[in-house]
Every structure is written in C-alpha cells, then in structure tokens.
C-alpha cells in the first residue's frame, strides 16, 4: 500500500502548521524555492505523468506548458475546490484534514507558473472547510510561507480562498472563472481557453485540489520516482471516495493500477458488498460517468481483469467501458433500482443546468420528466427510445461538458439495463405498491 497524500492522515493535529512541518511539510517548498527554477518544476511534473484528478485526466505538465506567458501580464493559478459531483467527496476530506497539503501545493505550483496571486475557489456548501483553510492560510502568512519574500527567496505570493454560491456548474473551469470575477457562473464559449484568456482576461491555469496537492510530492521525490508508481500512463496515487452498498465506505488512497476486484472486495479497502449481497452495478468515477454492470466492471469485454486506472476503466469505449473520472466510486447491490437511481442523477443535472444553451436547459428537464413517468408506472415502451433519442441530441451539442455528464448516465443505463426499464413498463401496478426499495428482478420488497 503506497500512500502519499494521506500518509500522515492519522497523526493528531496534522491540520496545524507545526505538526504538518514535523512530518515533512513544506520541505518541497523549501527545495523548490532554493534549488529549482520554475521551469524545472514544470519539467518534473511533466516527467511524473501526473494527470488531472478532477475528472478529465488531462496531463498536468502539458496543461502548465500551454499557459501563455506574455510579458507584463499577470498570470493566475486557480484551484478548483468546487467538488460537487454526486459520489465524489475526496477533496473535501483532504482539505478539511490536511489543509496545508493544498496550501503547500498552491505555493509550489504558483511559483512554477509565475503567478503572484492565486485563488482557491471552494464550493459554497463547504463553508466549514473554508474556515479551516482560512485558519491554515493565516498560519502560513504568520510563518512567512505566504506573502512577500517567501523564505527569503524573493518570491511573493498572495493566496485567497473564495467560497462560491453553491452551484455544480461552477466546477466547470470557465464558469468558475466567471464566478470568481463576481459574475453569474455561466460557462464561457471556448476558444479562447483559460490558458490564454482566463481570469480577468489573463492567462490562467485551473487545477483540481488533488492535482495541486500531489505537486509537492513530485518535487520531493522527483518526477521519475513518481512516474514509477502506478501503471502505464496512469501514474501516481489517486484518492477514491467509495460509497454505496459496501461494508467500508470512505476515502481511500490507492496506487493506480490496483485490480478493481481487490479494491472492491479486500478488507483493506471497501470490504465487499454490504450484507453479503451480490454486486449489481458500479458507477466508477462520479455520477456523470457511464454506469457498468458488475460483471463488466470486474472484467473487461475481453475477459481481462479490470484495474483502477484511466486506461483500463475506459477499455472498450462507452460500449463496454466507463471512466475513472473524479474517483466517486458508487457501488450498487442487487436490490438497487437502476431506473430510480438514474432518475435521481437526472434530477440533479436538471437542477444544476445553468440554462445558457438550449439542449441542456430543455433536455435535462425533459429526461427527468420521462424518467419520472417510469417510476409512476405511466411509461410505455416508446419512452425508452425517446430517452435514448433525447440524450443523443444533448451529447456534444452543448457549451460545456454538463450536457455530456447528463446524457452519459442515461445512455449507459439504457445500454446495459434495458430489461429493467421494460420491467417498469410491464409492471406498473407493482411499482405503485412498492414505493421505496425493491428487488428489481421480481419486484419484491426488501426488508432491510
């Protein structure tokens, strides 16, 4: 078991600066400021193969190298702490337990990018984490780790935490930038990309909390050593927030490339399915990635065992694969209704659509209403095809990826669990009788 981010999670008082420094904290900052040039750090991050932990998995070093660096123009680093994907709660955990890990990462990354001002945009609902971060930043300022002339190196940085108003869409980088500027959190039309024109029309890099927190470890151990962890192009460790019908839900740090079966069933991690029931389906990376039936999740279509890595999980494309996403690992046992779960997801996307572009604004609501018909027992067979048609007309036609996030779960649920939709159509009366949880195979209520 290799732990980097959560190495000292059990140390009491690790959220304070003194304890964090006792356990090797801010060593990377010292090394970066004294022994390295900004470009060296970018080079190490490139070597490490670190990929964005927010969901898309874009190589971080490459993203940093795209940052436009015109003379005399401010550059910004923004940390995306607007974690609101249903099923994902890793950043919240990391920030509230070890706030200095993020702050150290922010300082090192800002130094690498040449930013003089950096922001942490935190989700509005996480106000208690905001206070934790504020306290930690105040500690860092007092210790001379932030502000003017950090550690006598001549480099100065101001770091601000900005709580959002609580909108899922503000996790999209351009909407986040708009919101940070004090405007309505609507995604911008790209291009121009934030690397060229971002915050206040200046070049900006937006990175996830986990990505930034991993940077000090790369500086400490070197890019090559970091790249040695993991498998193939999925390097390093990843935080997985496991929830659903498992024995031990929680946030786990895994080495990428861990077999899925081990993660799901070993006592070290999830510990198997709750009440020793059978595995039905898994949403592997937060609500927006395609849902997979249990057998297809444990083994790929070719019969190879699946690994917890970017490549292995997306093996087979969307037909038989899924995505690692942001690491929101939702497990469903045999008693779960995929249709009802899907309605819940779709209701979320309907609620969170910003209303800017028409396919998402109108389509998400339409899908929710059609799915509600299934739950009410009014649906007919044509509605399954209608749902498929609506999602296909949203996907890829919207300004930001929220449209895709809304349509992928619908597409995958119909693709893998069509019989269950048909079951709902054929047995409308039973659905009415059994309001809450029910066994979908024979529609019997479950006692526990």
């Amino acid at each position, binding site marked *: 078991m290799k732990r980097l981010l959560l190495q000292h999670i059990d140390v009491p008082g690790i959220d304070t600066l003194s304890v964090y420094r006792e356990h090797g904290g801010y060593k990377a900052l010292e090394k970066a400021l004294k022994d390295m040039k900004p470009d060296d750090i970018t080079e190490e991050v490139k070597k490490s193969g670190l990929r964005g932990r927010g969901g898309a998995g874009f190589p971080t070093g490459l993203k940093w190298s795209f940052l436009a660096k015109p003379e005399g123009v401010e550059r910004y680093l923004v940390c995306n702490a607007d974690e609101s994907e249903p099923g994902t709660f890793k950043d919240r955990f990391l920030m509230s337990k070890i706030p200095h890990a993020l702050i150290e990462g922010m300082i090192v990354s800002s130094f690498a990018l040449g930013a003089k001002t950096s922001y942490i945009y935190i989700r509005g609902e996480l106000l208690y984490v905001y206070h934790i971060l504020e306290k930690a930043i105040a500690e860092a300022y007092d210790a001379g780790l932030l502000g003017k002339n950090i550690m006598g190196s001549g480099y100065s940085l101001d770091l601000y935490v900005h709580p959002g108003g609580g*909108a899922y*869409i503000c996790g999209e980088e351009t909407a986040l930038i708009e919101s940070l500027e004090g405007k*309505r959190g609507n995604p911008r*039309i790209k291009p121009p990309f934030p690397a060229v024109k971002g915050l206040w029309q200046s070049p900006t890099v937006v990175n996830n909390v986990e990505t930034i927190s991993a940077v000090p470890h790369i500086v400490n151990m070197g890019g090559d050593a970091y790249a040695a962890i993991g498998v193939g192009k999925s390097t390093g460790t990843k935080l997985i927030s496991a929830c659903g019908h498992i024995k031990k839900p929680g946030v786990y740090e895994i080495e990428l490339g861990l077999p899925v079966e081990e993660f799901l069933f070993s006592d070290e991690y999830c510990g198997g399915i709750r009440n020793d029931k059978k595995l039905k389906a898994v949403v592997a990376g937060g609500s927006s990635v395609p849902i997979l039936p249990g057998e297809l999740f444990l083994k790929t279509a070719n019969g190879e065992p699946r690994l917890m890595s970017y490549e292995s999980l997306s093996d087979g494309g969307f037909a038989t694969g899924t995505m690692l996403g942001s690491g929101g690992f939702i497990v469903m046992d045999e008693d779960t209704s995929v249709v009802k779960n899907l309605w819940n997801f779709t209701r979320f996307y*309907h*609620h*969170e*659509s*910003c*209303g*800017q*572009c*028409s*396919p998402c*604004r*109108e*389509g*998400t*609501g*339409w899908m929710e*209403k059609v799915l509600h018909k299934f739950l009410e027992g009014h649906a007919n067979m044509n509605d399954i095809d*209608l749902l498929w*048609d609506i999602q*296909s*007309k949203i996907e*890829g*036609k*919207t*300004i930001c990826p929220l449209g895709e996030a809304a349509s992928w779960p619908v597409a995958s649920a119909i693709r893998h669990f069509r019989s269950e939709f048909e079951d709902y159509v054929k047995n409308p009366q039973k659905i009415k009788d059994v309001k809450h949880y029910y066994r979908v195979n024979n529609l019997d209520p479950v006692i526990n």
Partner: protein
Amino acid sequence: MPKVTIDNVSIEVPEGTTILQAARMIGGNLVPPAMCYYTKLDTSGGYCRTCIVKVTQGSERDPRPMPKPVVSCRTTVMDGMVVENITNEELVEARKGVVEFLLINHPLDCPVCDQAGECHLQDLSYENGLSKSRYEFKRREFEMHDIGDKIKLHMNRCILCYRCVKVADQVCDGRVHGVINRGDVAEISTYIQNSVDNDFSGNMIDVCPVGALTDKTFRFKSRVWFAKPMDAHRNCDKCCGKVAVWLSGDDILRVTGRKDKYGEVEDWICNDCRFDKKQKSDWVIEGPRNIDRHSVIAQNKYGVLKQLKIDVSKQKQIGEKAHNK
C-alpha cells in the same frame, strides 16, 4: 486571406471572419440559421446551438476534424477549413433536435402573438422542426411583466437567446436588465421590477427573435403582414433617424429599425423615434421597403405589384402523405 469551403462551396474571407459570416457571404441554403447571434452585439451567439456545423478539416496546417459539432457563429475560420452544414445528414438531424428542444417549452401561441409572420422561431421550426411534438408534459409558465411603460415581456415565449441582455449591456447605459435563476426556470428580468429607463431600450424589441419582447404601442393592433413597411427618416439628435415605418392606410402602426434578411438592424434607433413619432408628418417617407425574407410579409402586396409566387410543394407533399395513409 483564409480560404474556407462550406458545403463544397469555397470562398476567401478576411482574417477573423466566423464560419457563419462566411456562409452568409456565400448565401443561399447553406447559411446556418441563427437565433441568438447578432452581428452588432459583441459576445452574442453560442447559446441557442441552432447554427452548429461539422468541421471535417480544421485547417490546411492541421487537417484533423473537430470532434464535436461547433457553433458557426463563434468559430473563426482557418485557412483550408472544410465545413459541412446541410450536406451532413447527422448534423441536420442534430439541428432538428435543437429545434425540438427550443420548442418543447414554447407556448406555440402564434395565432395571438404579435411576432407571428416575422418570427425566427416560426421560420426555424417550419424548416427544421417536426410537425408533431413528442413532449407531453406541462409547459413551463411565467407571469407577464412590463419592462418600462413601452415594452411588454412575455417570458413564456422566450428562448433565452441573451440578445436583449447584450443590448442592455452594450447599447443602453445603466444596466438593470439580465437573467435571473438558472436551468429551465431561468428568466429575463429587470432589477426588482425596475423599468428599463433608457433612450435605446426599445432596441430589445428589434433583437428579440421571438415574441417575448413586444412593443406595447403596437400590441394586438394588426398582424404584421397587413401593415405596409416603408423606409422613412427624420432628423433626430439622438439616433440616425433611419427607420422602417409600418403603415395601415395613413396611420403609422409601429416604427422599427431597418432589418436585413437575417433580422439584424442596420442601425439602432432611439425610443423617441420608435414610440412617440406616430404621425405621418413626423417622417419623410422614402418608399416601400422590400422585406427580403421568405415569410408572409415578404409577399409584399403593396408598392410594386408583383405576381405572388408561393411554393406549396412542401404542403402538397404533407397533404398527399396524410391522404395516402
């Protein structure tokens, strides 16, 4: 100058031209419809998604196709770009989907709507829509609002193109007008029922592609195709004074900007010209205005009398199909 090929027609255009503008330079059927883009308004466009096109070759240097359909109104052309619009079946299907989305919550109250006859959504749904709606739920409803004493906001009809927001932002000063709420309950609104008190606020009516913002001095007076549009001008110290007046006999029913065939005005006009100068003596009439659009007003039964040519082949097909069923 970059050369772009749209639906197998090539054209050289100035640097920085968007695909939509290039298509409009070519003209004809291959021009993508645009509901939210407005040449005169900065940062407009990109919201309605009706103008999506498929880029099958990014440029001469980098010939990779773009993975998703792009909005032609906000994508600038590159040298050697190849674009497919109506020649791409998938794209036509995708556009039908967008039109369906725009229509599911639209009240379709054209018979009582002042915009009927010059409504872009009508044209769009006639060309790209389905004859029957697959939406079977209650359409969303809003209350009607007055924006000032001259403009009526009928939010049910709105397709959230953001054009009026951009007018309020860029043409009027002292903005109190914007979008509140989000998702499918987002609505155009003013700051706590404030009226939009500005000399140029009336231009919101001209830019509105549907009947959401209407002229209260013209509401329910006449169907637009019964009025005669004439070019007219007057000396105005606030605006250019060049307008189109819509006559019924000798009465001026309404005054609007001079719109081209894409519904875009030549110049903004002020509220004095639009709302208050309703006497024929206020204006110097230049002559009949040819409405270069394919809607009913373009039949143009005044001025130069010309043979009416109505293409009924489409209706015939639908009729025959229904008959043979």
